[in-house]
C-alpha cells in the first residue's frame, strides 16, 4: 500500500465518518432533550395563558329595594333570606334593559336566555356585595359580571358556532348576541384577578374557578414543611456529620436516609393515610397532614445537601475553635453551622420547591376534595380543610367541562412561577455566598 499522508485512505475516511456520526448522535440527543423541554413549556403556556383573562360583562344594575328588601327595613336576617336566584333574575333584567337602552336587538332570545350568558357565580357575588353593604340597595351600581364558560370559550377558540349548535348549554344565537355586546363595549376580555384570589367553583362554572384556597393551602403546607424539616434536617445532619461515632448504628441511619430519598412519593402518602389519619386521628384534607407527609419526604432531600455543606467546611476552622477552648457544640454552632448556612439554605429551598410540586401523596390523604371555604388563620387553620396547588390542578383535569383544562394549565403556570422564584432564590443564594476554601 502506498499513498500520500495528505490524502486519506478508505479506512481513515470510514473512521472519520464514524466519528462524525457519533458526534451527531450526541448533538441529536441533546437537541431532542431540549426540544422536549421547549415543547412541554410551550404546550403549557399556550393552553394556560388564556386563563388569566376572562370575558366579563359590564353593565349598570339597579338594586331595586322592592325586589331585594320587600319590608324595606335593611334587616340583615331578612336580606339573607333573599336567594341567589332572585339576584340572578335581577341581573338578567338589568342586562336586557341595558341591551334595549343601547338598541341592541336580542332577536328571539328571551330575558332568561340573555340572563344565561351571565355566570351563576356572578349572582352570588352580587348577593355577597349587597349583604356586605346593605346601603347599596336602592342605588344603581356598575357591575362587572362573569360571562359563562361557553361565551368565554367562544372568545378563546374553544367554542365555535358549529359546536354551539350541538351544545344544550348555549346556542349560535347567544354567541351572535355576545358578538353584538362586544361591539357595543358591554362585553370585553379583561385581566382576571379572581383566578388567583377566588376559591374553586363547582363543575358547571369553570369561569369562576380560582386558585385562592389552593395557594393558601400550599402556603400553609410549606410553612409546616419549613418549620419542621429545616430544624430537624439540620439537627440530623449535624449529628451524623459532626458527632456520630462510626459504628453499625450510624451506618444504618445513613443507608436509611439514602434509601428514603428514593422511596416513591406515593408510599409516603400511604404512610400519611395509615399513620396520621387512621392512627393519630388527624382530619382529612388538612394542610397539617399534607405538611407532615411532605416533611417526611423532604427530610432526606434536605439532609443530603446539608451534610455536603457541613463536610465542605475545612477542618482547620474546627481545630481553631477547639484550640481556643470552645466546646464541640460551641464549635459547631458558632463556627461550622454559620459557614455552612448558605449551602444548607440552598438545599432547603430546592427541597421545598420539590415538596410544593408533589401531588401523589396528597391525593391519598384526601386533599383532592372540593373545598370552597378559605381555611382560617394558622395555627388553627392548619387543621381546616384546604386544597393544594398541584392537587387542584389534578382535580380540574378530572372535571367534565373543557373550560377546566385551560384552568389547569393556567394553574400550572402559577405553580411554575412559584418554583422559578424559589429556584432563582436558591441560585442567587449560592452565587452570593458560596465560598471555596
Amino acid at each position: 500500500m502506498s499513498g500520500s499522508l495528505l490524502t486519506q485512505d478508505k479506512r481513515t475516511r470510514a473512521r472519520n465518518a464514524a466519528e462524525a456520526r457519533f458526534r451527531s448522535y450526541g448533538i441529536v440527543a441533546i437537541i431532542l432533550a431540549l426540544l422536549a423541554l421547549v415543547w412541554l413549556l410551550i404546550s403549557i403556556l399556550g393552553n394556560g395563558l388564556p386563563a388569566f383573562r376572562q370575558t366579563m360583562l359590564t353593565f349598570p344594575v339597579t338594586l331595586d329595594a322592592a325586589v331585594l328588601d320587600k319590608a324595606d327595613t335593611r334587616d340583615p336576617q331578612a336580606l339573607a333570606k333573599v336567594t341567589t336566584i332572585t339576584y340572578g333574575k335581577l341581573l338578567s333584567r338589568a342586562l336586557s334593559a341595558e341591551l334595549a337602552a343601547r338598541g341592541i336587538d336580542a332577536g328571539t332570545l328571551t330575558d332568561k336566555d340573555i340572563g344565561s350568558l351571565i355566570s351563576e357565580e356572578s349572582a352570588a357575588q352580587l348577593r355577597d356585595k349587597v349583604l356586605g353593604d346593605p346601603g347599596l340597595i336602592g342605588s344603581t351600581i356598575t357591575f362587572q359580571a362573569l360571562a359563562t364558560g361557553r361565551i368565554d370559550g367562544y372568545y378563546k377558540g374553544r367554542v365555535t358556532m358549529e359546536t354551539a349548535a350541538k351544545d344544550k348549554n348555549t346556542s349560535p344565537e347567544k354567541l351572535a348576541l355576545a358578538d353584538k355586546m362586544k361591539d357595543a363595549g358591554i362585553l370585553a376580555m379583561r385581566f382576571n384577578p379572581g383566578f388567583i384570589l377566588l376559591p374553586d367553583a363547582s363543575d358547571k362554572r369553570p369561569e369562576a374557578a380560582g386558585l385562592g384556597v389552593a395557594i393558601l393551602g400550599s402556603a400553609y403546607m410549606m410553612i409546616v414543611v419549613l418549620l419542621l424539616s429545616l430544624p430537624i434536617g439540620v439537627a440530623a445532619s449535624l449529628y451524623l456529620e459532626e458527632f456520630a461515632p462510626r459504628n453499625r448504628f450510624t451506618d444504618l441511619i445513613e443507608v436509611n436516609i439514602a434509601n428514603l430519598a428514593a422511596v416513591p412519593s406515593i408510599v409516603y402518602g400511604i404512610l400519611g393515610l395509615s399513620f396520621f389519619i387512621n392512627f393519630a386521628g388527624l382530619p382529612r384534607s388538612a394542610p397539617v397532614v399534607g405538611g407532615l407527609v411532605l416533611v417526611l419526604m423532604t427530610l432526606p432531600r434536605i439532609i443530603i445537601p446539608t451534610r455536603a455543606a457541613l463536610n465542605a467546611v475545612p477542618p482547620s476552622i474546627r481545630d481553631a475553635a477547639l484550640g481556643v477552648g470552645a466546646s464541640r457544640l460551641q464549635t459547631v454552632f458558632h463556627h461550622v453551622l454559620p459557614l455552612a448556612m448558605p449551602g444548607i439554605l440552598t438545599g432547603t429551598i430546592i427541597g421545598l420547591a420539590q415538596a410544593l410540586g408533589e401531588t401523589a401523596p396528597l391525593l391519598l390523604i384526601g386533599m383532592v376534595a372540593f373545598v370552597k371555604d378559605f381555611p382560617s388563620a394558622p395555627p388553627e387553620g392548619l387543621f381546616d380543610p384546604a386544597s393544594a396547588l398541584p392537587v387542584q390542578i389534578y382535580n380540574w383535569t378530572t372535571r367534565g367541562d373543557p373550560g377546566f383544562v385551560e384552568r389547569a394549565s393556567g394553574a400550572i403556570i402559577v405553580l411554575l412561577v412559584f418554583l422559578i422564584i424559589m429556584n432563582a432564590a436558591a441560585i442567587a443564594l449560592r452565587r452570593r455566598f458560596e465560598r471555596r476554601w
Partner: protein
Amino acid sequence: MSLGLLLLLLAVLTVLAHVAGRRRAMRLVGGDLRKLHSLPDFYGRTTALAAAVPALILILVWLIAQAPLLEGRAMGRLQPTDITAERPLEAVRADVIRLADGLARLASAGETPAADPAALVEQLKAHGLVLQAEPTPGVLAAAESYRAGVVLSKVWLSLATIAVMALGFLLAWWRISPDFRARNATEGFTLALLVGASLIAVLTTVGIILSLLSETIHFFRLYPAAKFFLSTTWNPQFAGGSSLGLWPLVWGTAYVTVIALLVAVPIGLFSAIYLSEYAGPRLRGVIKPAIEMLAGIPTIVYGLFALITVGPLLRDWIAQPTGLGNSSTSVATAGIVMGIMVIPFVSSLSDDIINAVPQSLRDGSLGLGATPSETVRQVVLPAALPGIVGAILLAASRAIGETMIVVMGAGASAKLSLNPFEAMTTVTVKIVSQLTGDSEFGSPETLVAFALGLTLFTFTLVLNILAQIIVRRYREQYE
C-alpha cells in the same frame, strides 16, 4: 385560649425564663463571672429549656389524644336508635362533629341554638353549614358534649401548659448554683435532640414498613395471597367477590417503564457522552442546567402534558391511522412522557460517572491513534459501564414509582396486552384509585392498595440498593 395565643405565650414565657435564669446565676455570684462554672447564658438556657420542652411535648400529646378521647365520650351519648342502616356509625360520627362545629359557630356569633331540630338546621344554614340529616336528640346531645369537651379541653390545656412550664422553670431555677455545670447540662440536652432528629429517618422507615405490613396482613386475611400473586385478572367489585390479581398491574408498570427507558436511555446517555467528551465548558454550562430543568418540573405538569398534548397527538397521528387504538390515554403516552422526565436522571448520573473515568485511560487510547469516538466506545464506556447500569436502574426505579404521569396518561383499565396504544394501568394508578374510591376502608378492595404499596416499595428498594452497590463498587475502583 386559642392554640396560636398559647404558643405565643409559651414563647414569651420561655424568653422570660431565660432572662430569669441568667439573672439568678449572676446575682448568686454578685456579678463576678469568674465564680460561675459556665457562661451566664447557659444558666438562662437551662431554665428556658426546662420550661419550654416539657410544655411543648404536653401540647403535642394533648392535641393528638384529644380528638379520639372526646369523640369516644360524645359517641357514648348517642342512643341506639340513632344508628340506622342508612346512617351507619361513621356517618353519624361525621354528623356529630359537623353539628358540634355549627354549635361553636352559633356560640361565637352570640346566637342561642334553636330547640326545634328543623329550625336549628335553618339557623346553621344561615351560617353556611349544611347538615346531612336533621339531628335527633341523641346526636344533638353528643354534639353538645363534644363541643363542651372541646371548650373545656382548651381551658385545661392552657392551664396544664402553664403549670408544666412553671414546674419545669422552678425545678431548673432551684438547681442553679455557681457550681452547677450549666453548659454540660444544656449541651447534653442539645446533643440528645440532635440524636433524636436523626432517629426520625429510621422511624419513618419503620413507620412505612409497619403501616404497609400490618394492613397487608389484614388484606391477606380477607383475600387469599395465592390469588393476589398468581391471578391474571384485576376486577374489583363494590359488592364483593372481586378478583384482585397483581399481574395486569405489574405488566402495565413494566411496559410503561420499558418505553420510558427506551426514550430516556439513548437520549440521556448520548447527551451525557457529548457533554462530557465533546462539549466545551461554556456549552456545557448552558446545556446541563437546561436538561436538569426537566427533573425539577413537578410530575403533575408532565401528567397534564400527557393528558392534553401527547395523548391526543399519538391518538390522532399514529394510533387511529394505523388502527391500533383510539384512546388518548395509552401505555405509549405515559411511557414517552415519563421517558422525557427521566432523561436527566440518566444523563446527570452518567455524566458524573463518565467524568470519573481517569483521564489517563483516554490519553492512552488517543495516543495510540484512536479517534475520540473509538475512545469513548472502546475505553470510556466499558470502564464506566457498571456505573451507567446503576444510573439506568435508578431511572427505572424512578419510573416504576412515578404516579401522576400514569394516573393522567396511562388509563385505568387493567389489561394484559402487547399493544402500546391501548390504555393499561399500573400499580401506582391502582393504589390511588383504590384509596381515593368510595369503598369502605376495611374492605379487601381498599386494603389491596397496601399490598400493592408493599410490592412497589420492595421493588424500588431492591432496585435502589442494587444501583447503590454497583455505583459504589465502581467509584471505589477508580479512587
